[in-house]
């Protein structure tokens, strides 16, 4: 079937079977491999993407469910020239990255949080990324990176 949606700020139409997951659509039909599979049952968040501004697990979403909606993957987060955005920059700056496999999902979890809560507490950040498993970092520097970004963006908005 033809699926029409907005992918990383551009309109796309793709012919794909109706019974595949959004994760398969992204990775195997659109070649967007930044979105990872970690468990395929919605437990780990490695496949997290933003659908209409909300964080969803693409392994639990059927491809046709994105029809007419706005989808952002890790490939749509960076600046137009390909450089990392401020949150990605802070992931690097605060040492939030080790093996890197969970990081695309973590970045999207951070963005989804900051969209609805520009000034979160550390505990709210922890709750927002609690659907994203990371085995390397113990989460602390990921929380640091999201917290610093929130502060930077809030300060920037005020000025």
């Amino acid at each position, binding site marked *: 079937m033809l699926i029409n949606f907005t992918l990383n700020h551009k309109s796309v139409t793709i012919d794909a079977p109706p019974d595949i997951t959004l994760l398969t659509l992204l990775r195997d039909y659109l070649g967007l491999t930044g979105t990872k599979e970690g468990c395929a049952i919605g437990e780990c968040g490695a496949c997290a993407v933003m659908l209409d501004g909300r964080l969803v697990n693409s392994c639990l979403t059927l491809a046709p469910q994105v029809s007419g909606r706005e989808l952002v993957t890790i490939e749509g987060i960076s600046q137009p020239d390909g450089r990392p955005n401020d949150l990605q920059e802070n992931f690097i700056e605060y040492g939030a990255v080790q*093996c890197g496999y969970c990081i695309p999902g973590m970045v999207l979890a951070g963005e989804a949080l900051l969209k609805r809560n520009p000034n979160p507490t550390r505990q709210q950040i922890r709750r927002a990324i609690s659907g994203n498993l990371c085995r390397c970092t113990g989460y602390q520097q990921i929380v640091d990176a999201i917290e610093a970004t929130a502060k930077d963006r809030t300060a920037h908005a005020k000025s």
Partner: protein
Amino acid sequence: MAKIESVGKPARRVDALEKVLGTAKYVGDFRLVGMLHARALRSELPHARIMRLDVTPALTVSGVKAVITCADFVDNGLYGFPVKDKYMLAYQKTRYVGEAIAAVAADTPAAALAGVKAIICELEPLPVLADMTRALEPDAPQVGPVSTAGQHPNFLNNCPVRHGNVEAVWPECEVTLERHYTVPHQEHAYLETEGALAIPTPEGGVAVYCSCQSPFINQGYLVAALGLPSELVRSIQPPVGGAFGGKDDLNYESSAQTAALALKTGRPVRMTFAREESMVASYKRDAMHMDIKLGAKADGTLRACEFAGLLDSGAYASESPFTGWRASIHAMGAYRYEACQVDITSVYTNNGYAGAMRGFGNTEVCLGIEQAIDELADQIGLDPLEFRLKNCLRLGDETPHGQRLTESVGLTECLTRVRDMSDWTRKRREFTAHNSQSPIKKGIGVAALFHGVSLGAEGADAASSTIEVNGDNSITLTSGLTDYGQGSRTVFTLIAADELGVKPARINIHRPDTYTALDSGPTVASRSTVVGGNAAQVAARNLAQTIDYAAASLLGCELSQLVREGEAYVGPSEEPVSWDNVVSHARQMGLILSARGKWSAPPIEWHHEGWGTPYFTYHYGAQVVEVAVDMGTGKTEVVGVWAVHDVGKVIFPQGAFGQAYGGITQGLGYALWERIDYDNGYLQATNFDEYMIPTALDVPDIKVAFVENNFSAGPHGAKNLAEPVLVPTAPATLNAIAHAIGRHIRDLPANLERVLLGHDLSKPGSGTACKLGLWTAM
């Protein structure tokens, strides 16, 4: 402007950018034209004889291009180190649920799965050995190979430590304690599952991208199993999505299977695992039973330790003989004793199989000994932290192995600093008073550790680096050691940059590739910084010498007169010349701008009777954990963790803190939530819905500090870090729970039932999920 110094200063991970952008390509992200997808047929029985294996029906399935069995490998693909007991595909028998029997390559993952289902495989069940404590009974089912040394076939090895005569000391001990502790298996839970991509080469060889820890080991196994000359086999290290010891064995099988299928079909072949397949088929941290006896004077001076450990290696040896050895060296803890007697015995069972995992034996024994130390301190009436300070190893002491500690022994400082950071003394006192009046019980516990640096007596211990100035004056650095997330590429870059006096950004460090890097042994045992870091330093120093000659020539001065200002060189005329100009001059002089460096670890000596110098130096550390236990539910909340570790020198601070936070979090998971149960050989938890690793909400903000007690042979004085940060977390947590609730939980994990009721609730097991997991569609 001063000389450039990047070691120990804030720095960025060299591979962070591609990872935050999502452009890093892990094995599962590769797409090649004509690439086939591979899948293994895996045993549904924990122990069976293969009566019939007919793969020809698979070849009739649409899309299937090739099928292989053990017959497609030299010597049936027999491999393993230090014990050769496993096959690249099962030969005659299967010994655990999930063991690979045959492998199919097909156009799509679905066709590969259909092909696997079409294979005719008749298995005759054999008696199952599920209880390691029965493994050495005369009538136990035989899992291991027939012993040529007259041992029980299920006996794998025994690792002793002997110091003094415990029998003579026991009667003189005024206080003694005997306890039994157990730890279950632990799953590594790397977020990226196993994977390998093999590409046949025009010259008849194969290049394999394998998500593994040691590409040179992979290459060695491929050469042996495929019967190819080594120059036709290339092993390339892609980004690895976590390993923690878990990608140093099974992935070599996937690698060999994809390589054989690629050679058979002439097409690229990739195999990646679904999470369930990974959980069922992959090896775990071993389970261990520990019987510990301690003796002391009434004033709290430790005198003797007897430690008997039984290690469940499961169906294969993997690295358990080494795990058992490291466990034996550390079993008595970082203390002085008059006498010690340690025996760690490893046995075969049909409980999956066990191999390397972070901490590698020390994690297991530390859980036992550090609780026993607490229980003994309590019995004597001493504060457990002060008891440790009274007895812990100090500079100049002799270890229970007979090794004199001559440098870099920072345990006393770790203990005193973690005591102060955590506000230990006040909390210890106030919580005791608080708990008599509240259903929420507060507790604070401590654990200490020492951890031998690098391989020790496991084998030859050396690493190599290459370094080269490119045409654009950027620098390419290689190491034979793998960065699977721990940050070693950044560590090597910083060390080489300082040696050359250049900015780290000038250096591009490659991932290991057996065609371009030099064999540096396995990436295990937290050996990268000390062994690989030294190799990078030696290589950079060799290159720096060449560039210094060019600088002296250009500036018309002696080598000793050269001074650095930033990257620039300055001579007696005090006119700086840029590094680029010096390098250009070197080329004009005809100097070769590349170098190698090899570093071999200081010699060690271990006598198999149980004494000697097991490691060239040790990491020391201490952690304090604070908990709040709800006695209405048994739930333990981790309120705080404080950790102080003597790492010699911190090279890459951001990475060092990250290792500590991550290791401690894995330790909290081990202590409280992570549970691997085998029910008659069948794994019970096959995905993250049942195997609970910590989330961001389960752990508090952790406070970490480092003691830098320089090790003279380490690069900039560095020792190690990655494993030891995990080791003391679980016992510190259990000691905190004991402080809170007034009794020790001696079996992991300390789940709600054990905390609330004092014992586990037995749950009926099933083989269903485990069997289904082998057929999860990709």
